[in-house]
């Protein structure tokens, strides 16, 4: 292909829309995508499952008690990547440093869910539903943010509006707005891949299309809409741009596929991936070791994604979160146990980065939450509320985070 990938895809899609041989739903999608993508920014959400150790990720290296409480796992002052004279990145996050320096990466510290649960299950659910303490919520904050966007500005959307790189739709994206879950972009086909739909796929499309079953008629239509769109976009041709080099890890692969979907111009507004391996109860390591390895993969994958997106990164906002932080003190087995407040990264073209946000509660013994964890000073929903209102135009934050009283005058002004 002589022209650039993006040029081809954009123009290819419009050229397709002009032909008459296409099924109606594909034409509709392409048109919808033209409307849907133009003014929109895209939000990418990364969930670090297992409770990441925020205190060793963005290190408060001026805190004497940090070193006293973590004799074998603390990151030495001379090893951190100094951000502002008080906080420094774990050395494995070197890929983040230029993004911070360029003002694209913002950090929020001492942030998290106000619920005191130390259960992974509950805390992940609470974080994803956006209603800490309320277990009966069945939909996710990001789905409700898309609903709020629709209230503000109804528009047609493609089947790829909300997409998760996983086997099923995570709670974050679950709800009234249809969301796609896929494990592998290149396997998202019925009856085998190929330039044309398989006979089985055509037959299924016709059967679901004629069915009087409202739920499955619509689900089938969306499915074949998505499958066709993906085939037309031919993401298999995709090669990372700008020399982006993704780690050959599960998370690197997920970020690569999110880039694939975003560059294929499928109308993605919200994308989700999780990244696992943070539950470091034992032997978590310091400058090197278990956590360092996770952070290397984490930061290299995200930095590769950012590089890959090139100019398109202007309209992308990426946010990371984890269900809770870990104990301020290391435990008897070279690890840390379940704690409370944590750190979030926000990366984006419109982010006022290069700054560590949030009120710092301190790490003296009497400043710790329940005498054991970093205290919480910022509700994570303030961060997300600000992002969804600036990126998705979801201004009805009462719908997105019911009961949380997130208002623009309480924003951190990071976007």
């Amino acid at each position, binding site marked *: 292909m002589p022209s650039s990938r993006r040029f081809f895809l954009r123009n290819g899609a419009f050229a397709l829309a002009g032909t008459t041989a296409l099924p109606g739903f594909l034409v509709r999608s392409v048109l919808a995508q033209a409307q849907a993508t133009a003014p929109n920014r895209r939000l990418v959400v990364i969930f670090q499952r297992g409770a990441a150790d925020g205190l060793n990720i963005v290190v408060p290296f001026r805190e004497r008690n940090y070193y006293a409480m973590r004799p074998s796992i603390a990151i030495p002052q001379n090893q951190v990547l100094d951000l502002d004279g008080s906080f420094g990145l774990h050395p494995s996050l070197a890929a983040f440093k230029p993004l911070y320096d360029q003002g694209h990466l913002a950090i929020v510290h001492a942030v998290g869910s106000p619920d005191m649960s130390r259960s992974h299950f509950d805390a992940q659910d609470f974080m994803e539903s956006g209603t800490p303490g309320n277990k009966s919520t069945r939909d996710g904050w990001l789905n409700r943010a898309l609903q709020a966007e629709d209230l503000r500005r109804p528009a047609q959307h493609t089947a790829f509006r909300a997409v998760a790189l996983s086997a099923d739709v995570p709670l974050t994206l679950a709800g009234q707005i249809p969301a796609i879950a896929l*494990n592998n972009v290149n396997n998202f086909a019925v009856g085998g891949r190929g330039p044309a739909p398989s006979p089985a796929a055509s037959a299924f499309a016709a059967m679901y299309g004629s069915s*009087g079953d409202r739920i499955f008629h619509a*689900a089938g239509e969306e499915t074949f809409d998505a499958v066709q769109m993906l085939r037309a976009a031919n993401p298999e041709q995709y090669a990372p741009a700008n020399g982006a080099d993704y780690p050959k890890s599960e998370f690197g692969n997920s970020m690569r596929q999110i880039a694939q979907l975003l560059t294929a111009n499928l109308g993605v507004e919200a994308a989700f991936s999780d990244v696992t391996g943070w539950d470091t109860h034992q032997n978590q390591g310091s400058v*090197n070791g278990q956590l360092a390895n996770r952070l290397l993969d984490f930061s290299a994958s995200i930095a590769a994604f950012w590089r890959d997106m090139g100019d398109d990164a202007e309209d992308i906002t990426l946010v990371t979160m984890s269900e809770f932080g870990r104990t301020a003190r290391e435990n008897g087995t070279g690890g840390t146990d379940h704690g409370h407040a944590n750190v979030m990264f926000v990366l984006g073209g419109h982010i006022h980065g290069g700054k560590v946000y949030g009120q710092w509660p301190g790490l003296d013994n009497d400043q710790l939450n329940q005498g054991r964890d970093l205290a919480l000073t910022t509700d994570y929903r303030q961060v997300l509320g600000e992002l969804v209102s600036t990126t998705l135009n979801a201004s009805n934050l009462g719908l997105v985070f019911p009961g949380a009283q997130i208002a623009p005058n309480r924003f951190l002004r990071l976007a």
Partner: protein
Amino acid sequence: MQPFHGTVSALLCLSLLSPSGLVTAQVAAQTPVASSRPAYRSTQLQGDARILHALSRFTFGPRPGDLEVVRSIGLDKWFEQQLHPESIDSSELNRRLAQYPAMQLNTDQLLYQLPSNALIRQAVNGRLSVPTGEPLQAIYENQMDRVSARLQQQRQQNAPLPQQTAAPASGMNAPAMEGQNEASPNANPMNRAGDPASQEMMSGSAQPSPAAPAQPPVDTLLTQDILGLPAEQRVSRLVSMRQPELDTFLKSLKPKERADLVSGLSPQQAELVSALENPEATVVDELIAQRLTRDIESSAQLQEVMTDFWLNHFNIYLRKDEVMPYELVSFERDIVRPLALGKFEDLLEATAHSPAMLLYLDNASSIGPHSIAAERAAFNASRRPANQRQAPEGLNENYARELMELHTLGVNGGYTQADVTQVARILTGWGVAQPQRGGGFEFNPNRHEPGAKKVMGQKFKDHGEAEGRELLHFLATRPATAQFLSRELAIRFVSDDPPQPLIDRMAHTYMTTGGDIAAVLSTLYHSPEFWSASSYHAKVKTPIEYVVSALRASDASVDNLRPVANALRQMGMPLYGCIPPSGYSWKSTDWVSTGSLVDRMNFALALAAGRLPGIFADWAPQPQDDPPPAATQSSDPIVNEEARLEAALIPAGLDPATRTALLQQFHDEIAQRAPGAAVVTANPNANPRRAANVLQREDQLLAGLLIGSPEFQRR
């Protein structure tokens, strides 16, 4: 794009507006849309529709011939039999289950014979002696080598650290060895699985050791030599091999050779070969295989449906702790299945005492804040320097909360946070003796919170373990519990939004029969709401219902359960793989999604085309089948073929619109793509072998489309 999650009422009306095939036509229905009364008053299912409805709800889906069997027994009598599984012949099922000998063992025996990785680490550290004598010694030593290699690799990665890898995580009562158990909450609930057809591994832990040293090539003569041995000698030869020789050899085998390796082995020998490779994965594989075998094959279908229901109600996550797969064997076999149709209070009591539940919801690590154990711990902590203090252990409310919220009263069951704390205090001391060795329930009075407690206004006097038993009785007999359980059952068996009068009737039965589950189901069975035409096909199949019903409808011979387990994982419903205690949802909105439909269609096509290894469905007409009446025969052979397969797979029939679309596509596109196919079909004598191949491929595609159809997504 319209949101596709229509309201339930819209859906119910819809299923009436589009009668599917002959059977629905037997609904004695006036047009319900015109009526303002609830649909179930005026439209009750009749005749075969009743049988198909019952089969779709009280079984994992009808097999060919089931309709006729129930017709001859009589529906009511059949249901009575299902309520009393002990009356149903299970000899054929038991013959199949004999393939999984370890599933008969007690937890401690199981752990001894197929040691967990926690026990293997103890053996590596010299805290557990390795059994002498083959084959146990080989099982232990091979796994110790693998675990040591893994630990060594970790140590190299963590090079600058003080070497603490070998230190115990904490005492034997530690809730989980999470740092070492990579699969714990770190893991995405749904492991990323590839194409179900191509995936071979059933449990994630069956991966070969990542730290295996560089391996010498395997002598092909050696391979042939071993594979050529008679069964007993072949097994002895493997037992005599050690690491890295054994894994090198096993990894070098091609799929065909792999099959040859275990061919002709007795179940015990096959289990041993699997254990030599990975003892823990052997337990997980057998646990999953026996469950799916029962779901697919058991004649006591309602017992299996209810076992599935209660395993979801009392959800346990397989990877919470390394001992969990072992505890789950007993949890399911000794508690859930035998009590699935018994008294709810017995089931509640047994789950509350089970190591699986006590570990999964952390009650085993809960300590009364004023107990003797807590006071001792505080005293010891005060003598340590500040930076070495362990997090103080104390009350854990996890089980207390879920016991009320998920197991008995329901989230709106009228309890407060203060009640949760009180329940947690009552249950302090309920723990597990030597959890990693399968020690069983233990009440530890030193951990029990002293003093009287009060839950929802009810006082519980201070008397040790008996407090907990009184509490469970109290919870099991609350009207809120009767309502909550009745609603859950009605959602499973009737509709996503079941009518309140039905729930009330079931709850009344619950209260008057001392929580008799069979009696509650009987009330459901005898309720007009259940037989309402609006309930017919109202439920969307969950992944397990979909996959198992497909295998049953196909009458497939299933010799390998791994592709089935992989498909469930791919569809987001891995067996024993639900991390949160809430279990999986029974409602359609949680299972109808774009990604999941792609997975279901691909599963249908793979099953029908014989692309799932070890699973075979025969689509050719069987000699014993009655020939179809000539009057119904079409001149178009594809129409006849479709009709034959549709009758077998979807006895309630396709929606005519779906069928027309299917046949249209089949003619237009498929005939074009395979020139000559239609001609051969019409004239099978032209070239018998080629004709047979074409027919077979046509049948496979037709069957795949039927199993993947919108109609087959419902029950």
